[in-house]
């Protein structure tokens, strides 16, 4: 009962980030940094709140360990971070609409699939994501050309620096978490068993 209510509450709450992302669209998309670091997370959060932590049961056999859902989230995020797609999502209504639909789907997939991923795979994914964020940040800073026609070169630099800061901070948080977990020897093998989370399905 309580769980049902909290899921319903979370779903109602999803309207807030979604509305904010839609209503403040022009302002958020006016700068590259707020476009990617505020609007994107708002849309992901809306999807995450809407979906809740459990994937639909009928998808279980197709999504063991959350693998398929996480692949979907990765693909959606990679696509919407292409410079020409970022440009299109500002200048082309069809792309804008597709972005507002796709990113919540990625958020939903992340929310319900990440907890299902085995511990070791989650660590690998975290490191991979951090490395990607660092590489993207470096690229945005190092490439001499302006990658997005709708944004200034200086905004590209800001975004690059933000990606690097996020990568370094995330790495520190990840390392801290790892050091905290490591002394609890029982935790690793238990959570590390392949598809352990499936047992709860």
């Amino acid at each position, binding site marked *: 009962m309580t769980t049902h209510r909290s899921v319903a509450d979370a779903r109602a709450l999803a309207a807030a980030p979604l509305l904010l992302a839609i209503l403040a669209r022009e302002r958020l998309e006016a700068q590259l940094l707020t476009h990617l670091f505020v609007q994107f997370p708002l849309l992901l959060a809306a999807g995450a709140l809407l979906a809740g932590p459990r994937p639909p049961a009928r998808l279980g056999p*197709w999504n*063991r360990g959350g693998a*398929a859902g996480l692949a*979907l989230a*990765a693909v959606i995020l990679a696509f919407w971070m*292409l*410079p020409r797609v970022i*440009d299109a999502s500002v200048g082309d209504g069809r792309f804008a609409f597709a972005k507002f639909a796709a990113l919540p789907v990625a958020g939903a997939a992340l929310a319900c699939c990440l907890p299902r991923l085995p511990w070791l795979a989650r660590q690998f994914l975290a490191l991979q994501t951090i490395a990607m964020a660092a590489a993207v940040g470096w690229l945005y800073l190092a490439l001499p050309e302006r990658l997005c*026609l709708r944004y200034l070169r200086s905004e590209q630099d800001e975004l690059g620096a933000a990606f690097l800061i996020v990568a370094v901070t995330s790495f520190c948080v990840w390392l801290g978490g790892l050091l905290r977990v490591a002394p609890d020897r029982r935790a690793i093998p238990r959570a590390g068993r392949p*598809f352990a989370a499936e047992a709860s399905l």
Partner: protein
Amino acid sequence: MSSQGTGRTVLATAAVLAAGVGALLAETEGLRAFTSETARRLAVAHAPKPLPVVPLRDERGERIEIPIPGRPMLVEFIYTSCPTLCTTLAASFARIQDRLAEAGAPPALQLLSVSFDPGRDDPAALRAYAEAHGADPARWRVALPESGADLRTLLEAFGVVVIPDGEGGFVHNAALHLVDRGGRLAAILDPGEIERAVEGLGG
């Protein structure tokens, strides 16, 4: 049951990744175009793009309509108070103008600098720009689209994006746009590609 579930998951993940890679390949023209600028250049190189007829007013107040049927042209987009990119574009046009004259090409309007700054670029500003860069009106004119709607049509047709630079000026994608005899956008060249530009004009 367990191995069946694993098999389905592998299948679903592979399908998602394949669809994703397909979308990425399609959107980047086979990993060649990650930016809008590269994409628009590849698109016209692959298939020249028909252009709408747009009226402009040049530095002498004369009306011009582009594209001019049967005449290859180069079009660049500028604003006359631009201190950087537009100067490079104007320098390219000046060199191309010289090359055409040296090659004995008959004098004909083949070079057009289009201003996207109607707020500041009145005919006097266009004239000053043309004179400062040595434009010979027989070959090279500096013009402003007749209305805001014409300007938007032109920018959209050529794929030029103009944004404020935050300091009273603009940032824009700078290139030499080659319009072929059929009135189609046939190539988008870097300002330094003088030879290709002259060749494209038939000089």
